[in-house]
């Protein structure tokens, strides 16, 4: 926000511009700036710095809703289904998450249910080797549902704590591919007692308003319990998660910030809010 010190309409427009250029989206940006206007009047705020603080608070408040912790616990099989559109970072994130959970003492297994894309299985194999994670896979062209089924059997018989399922990227409007995902969900529901503990939607921080369509359609297809936002090490702010929290109540569980196995960290609302406005 500029070197302005006094409060006028131009300042509110600047706040709106900051939010829109951070991919927050027009509707949510206008809502937030109206809230700041309200509090400015009520609290008799008089400087740009104070307004910035209020905005930061309101964003952090919005993002604090929901459960930001991963729903895994010892003593049962925790199935985590990972979904999302093409190229967002699902496979890489599974490598990171699997490794992190293993460091935390969980027995982890991974399922290579992307049997479609060239070298998808090899890519996941490399990550699992790096992290020391067991991998269940078939061959390219195999039925992804069969891989999931086998992985569930193996995870149960080997008393695994967490099973991470990697799926092929798919655009949310491809009905036949979304049907394939629903089938995978049904198999997990049937074979793993109370179904997946988490269905995580992986979102690329460079994505614009289409992220809302992704959240909506993946939620409708398989139910989504949380988001992992990747590529936050770039210049994109990832503001779409505000609209996603607002409209679809999906909490962000992790942030991916690089291409190494340890570049995954927990989501902290205040931190994210601060970086959104810089």
């Amino acid at each position, binding site marked *: 926000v500029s070197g302005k010190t006094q409060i006028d309409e131009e300042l509110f427009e600047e706040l709106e511009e900051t939010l829109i250029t951070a991919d927050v*989206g027009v509707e949510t940006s206008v809502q937030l700036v109206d809230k700041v206007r309200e509090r400015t009047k009520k609290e008799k705020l008089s400087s740009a710095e104070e307004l910035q603080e209020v905005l930061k608070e309101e964003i952090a408040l919005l993002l604090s809703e929901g459960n930001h912790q991963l729903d895994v616990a010892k003593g049962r099989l925790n199935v985590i289904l990972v979904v999302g559109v093409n*190229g967002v970072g699902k496979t890489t994130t599974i490598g990171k998450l699997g490794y992190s959970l293993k460091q935390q003492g969980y027995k982890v297994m991974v399922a290579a249910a992307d049997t479609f894309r*060239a070298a998808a299985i090899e*890519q996941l194999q490399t990550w699992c080797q790096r992290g020391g994670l067991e991998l269940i896979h078939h061959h390219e062209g195999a039925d992804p549902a069969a891989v999931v089924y086998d992985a569930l059997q193996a995870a149960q018989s080997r008393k695994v704590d967490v099973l991470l399922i990697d799926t092929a990227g798919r655009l949310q409007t491809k009905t036949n591919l979304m049907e394939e995902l629903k089938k995978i969900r049904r198999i997990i529901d049937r074979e793993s007692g109370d179904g997946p503990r988490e269905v995580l939607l992986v979102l690329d921080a460079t*994505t614009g*308003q289409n992220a809302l*369509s992704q959240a909506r359609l993946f939620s409708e297809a398989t139910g989504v319990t949380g988001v992992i936002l990747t590529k936050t090490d*770039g210049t994109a702010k990832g503001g779409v998660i505000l609209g996603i929290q607002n409209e679809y109540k999906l909490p962000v569980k992790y942030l991916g910030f690089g291409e190494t196995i340890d570049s995954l960290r927990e989501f902290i609302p205040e931190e994210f809010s601060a970086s959104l406005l810089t």
Partner: protein
Amino acid sequence: NISEKIQAIFKNLRGKGKLTEKDVQAAMREVRLALLEADVSYKVVKEFINKVTERAVGSEVLESLTPAQQVIKIVHEELTQLMGGTQSKISLAAKPPTVVMMVGLQGSGKTTSSAKLARHMKKQGKSPLLAACDVYRPAAIKQLQVLGEQLDIPVFSLGDKQSPVDIARGARAHAEKNGFDLVILDTAGRLHIDEELMEELAQIKQQCHPQEILLVVDAMTGQDAVNVAEKFNQTLGLDGVILTKLDGDTRGGAALSVKAVTGQPIKFTGMGEKLDALEPFYPDRMASRILG
């Protein structure tokens, strides 16, 4: 859609004559909203709205159109013109091989688009060689090799222990020696703010003299598109853009942002995961899609 919204604004307008400033501003509020929702860059939207307002205010409403149709026509024309023409040509080197370099952020579709482009050029009678210059991403070389096999197009690789610059030079030398007239360099995805990796691309350019440096951009990219395009253009000088994943429902406003900030044409669009899903870029279709 935007046409209906503008029609609604003008429905109380009686008679024709000239468009007043007040009428145009009301319509422009809707256009601004539509462009921002479509992910067009904030600054690009501002400039566009100013330009179109200037052209629309005081303009005579044509006999055959309603005021709303007149505004929509101006907006659509300006947008289409901004998107550039249909230029899906790869400039060829005077002396083969022609070198094409594919660059862009992680996951944008470079490897898939490299294979698609090779297939497209092979159909046009060229003899392409794919070069696996991504030594970082696990199984990246394997991915390109699998695609090359599917297309019966050779893939040059020196494994993942050599530098991408050496691989690119090796690919060019291999092409000259073995009669390939086109080399397509698939590079690793990288952040535009990663100085070391951007320098690597500058080195490849310096040593391989590509005829075309194409920025591969994911059509769902939001406001960050300007930052990425600007930096890649500054560092390398781009010759064109490939916009991928347009087979989804993203409005694709990044197309306008990238064109506005680099001045370079969008040459192709990725319309699916299959290797035949590469199409020329149609500016008028893109304009309609962005407006919604």
